[in-house]
């Protein structure tokens, strides 16, 4: 309970810190809106050329795209400590200041940064989901709404977990490792689209290693009324838990890496 309060108060502090420079904040948020909005426009143009992609209609594709955007940018907004600030903390030795406080390291890293500018990207994602929902004529019900929330929540965990791989490698190599970006940012770009349009190796990668397919696509397909792989409803509710499993595994890796931390000079 205390930990959640600590997190909320830290986020408040981080967001207030950013708002200390209102002009900069506004301009950067606007820039993000233009960038993300531009990408969405491009997607609309492309989708406009197709009648369908496998079994998916344009509305379905917008929904998939929006779900991924919302989940990913929510993670970047509220998990910035892990998705962005951590490598810098290792390189400068700032992690020392966290280690001398009586709290878990991960929670403190989590609390150490926020990126409220991402609100622009989240807004574009929401717009895409709404558009998709209207075009695909989703008949919303309570289970569907709950499943959507579940999917976003576990997606959040999954993405944090993937960034923890990078965090772990950074402790060993001090400098940031771009390799893991194939899973994080690469995963985001690839899994904007439903998984079944990809060849087998990629399907395996994004089902087993970075299970975006299980966490986001299976629930999304069920919400759209087109069960992926013909899996039943209970599977749609169960699959997102894979996000928590991934997070747990990568967190264990992170714990091991932390024992190798060696700080920097004074």
């Amino acid at each position, binding site marked *: 309970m*205390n930990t959640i309060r600590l997190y909320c*108060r830290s986020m408040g502090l981080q967001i207030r810190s950013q708002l200390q420079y209102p002009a900069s904040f506004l301009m950067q948020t606007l820039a993000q809106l233009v960038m993300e909005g531009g990408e969405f426009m491009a997607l609309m143009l492309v989708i406009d050329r197709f009648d369908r992609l496998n079994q998916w209609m344009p509305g379905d594709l917008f929904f998939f795209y929006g779900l991924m955007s919302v989940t990913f940018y929510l993670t970047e907004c509220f998990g910035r400590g892990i998705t962005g600030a951590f490598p810098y903390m290792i390189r400068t030795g700032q992690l*020392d200041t966290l280690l001398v406080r009586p709290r878990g390291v991960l929670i403190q890293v989590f609390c150490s940064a926020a990126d409220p500018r991402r609100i622009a990207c989240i807004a574009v994602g929401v717009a895409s989901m709404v558009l998709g929902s209207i075009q695909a004529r989703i008949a919303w019900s309570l289970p569907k709404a709950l499943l959507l929330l579940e999917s976003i929540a576990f997606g959040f965990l999954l993405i944090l977990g993937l960034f923890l791989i990078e965090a772990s490698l950074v402790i060993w190599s001090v400098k940031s490792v771009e390799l893991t970006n194939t899973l994080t940012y690469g995963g985001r770009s690839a899994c904007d689209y439903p998984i079944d349009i990809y060849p087998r190796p990629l399907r395996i990668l994004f089902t087993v290693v970075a299970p975006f397919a299980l966490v986001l696509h299976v629930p999304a397909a069920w919400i759209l009324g087109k069960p992926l792989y013909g899996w039943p409803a209970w599977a749609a509710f169960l699959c997102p838990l894979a996000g928590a499993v991934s997070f747990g595994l990568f967190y264990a890796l992170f714990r091991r890496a932390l024992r190798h931390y060696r700080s920097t000079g004074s």
Partner: protein
Amino acid sequence: MSYITVEHLRKTFTVRKKKDRGFLAREKTTVEALKDVSFTVKQGELVGYIGPNGAGKSTTVKVLSGILTPDSGAVRIGGRVPWLERKEHVRRIGVVFGQRTQLWWDVPLLDSYDLLREIYRVPEADFRRRMNELSEALDLGSLLRTPLRQLSLGQRMRAELCGSLLHCPELLFLDEPTIGLDAVSKLALRDFLQWENREKGTTILLTTHDMEDIAALCRRVMVLGHGSKLFDGALEDLYARYRNALPVQELTVQYPNIDHVIAAMYQELGL
């Protein structure tokens, strides 16, 4: 029973150096930051820990504050092993890194302190009492609503001290706290440390290059060089022993530059 016991502490780092030739070739060398350091500190002592850059002072502080795990040796502080019981240990200590802030850059000090209160789970009433006490002793009253980034170096150091003492630690590590401070700020800081040590019985381990800090505060000094403890005792004894090594112009100064003493020590030990 000593409060801090350090026995045969060793810590090595592997450093990769770039070779003269070759684009990616790196040479691996092992640097012994600490080789067999032992000492004890009693509760309520104020100990100066001096030595040239790279002597292993910061490494010692990092091991003692639970940041680093040593290669071998035993450390007990208040009955705890710092790196094994990190959370329990750091709840009872405060650390000030001279070069690194622990507060939040863009928000008023009070907000930073409030978050620290949350982190250390200090009860509201205790926090308010301690806050009053510290802000008076450190003369922070008018600064509490100012963001950290707008403070001068001296003000910032006072703010850092306040932040690291809010949870009433039994033990305080100070890593070069007076670095870059003017005379007035230094004096104020020393007064405060004496006050904290006397009134609260806080054990303080102070690393510094400033001999006046040591002379004003510490009855006991430990000198570290090349990862070994070279001297442990009173400052006067240290100077008395190496008086011959001091150049003439330093003899008239009350607290001669420690560099000459250390140079003489190195020569004596053949380091």
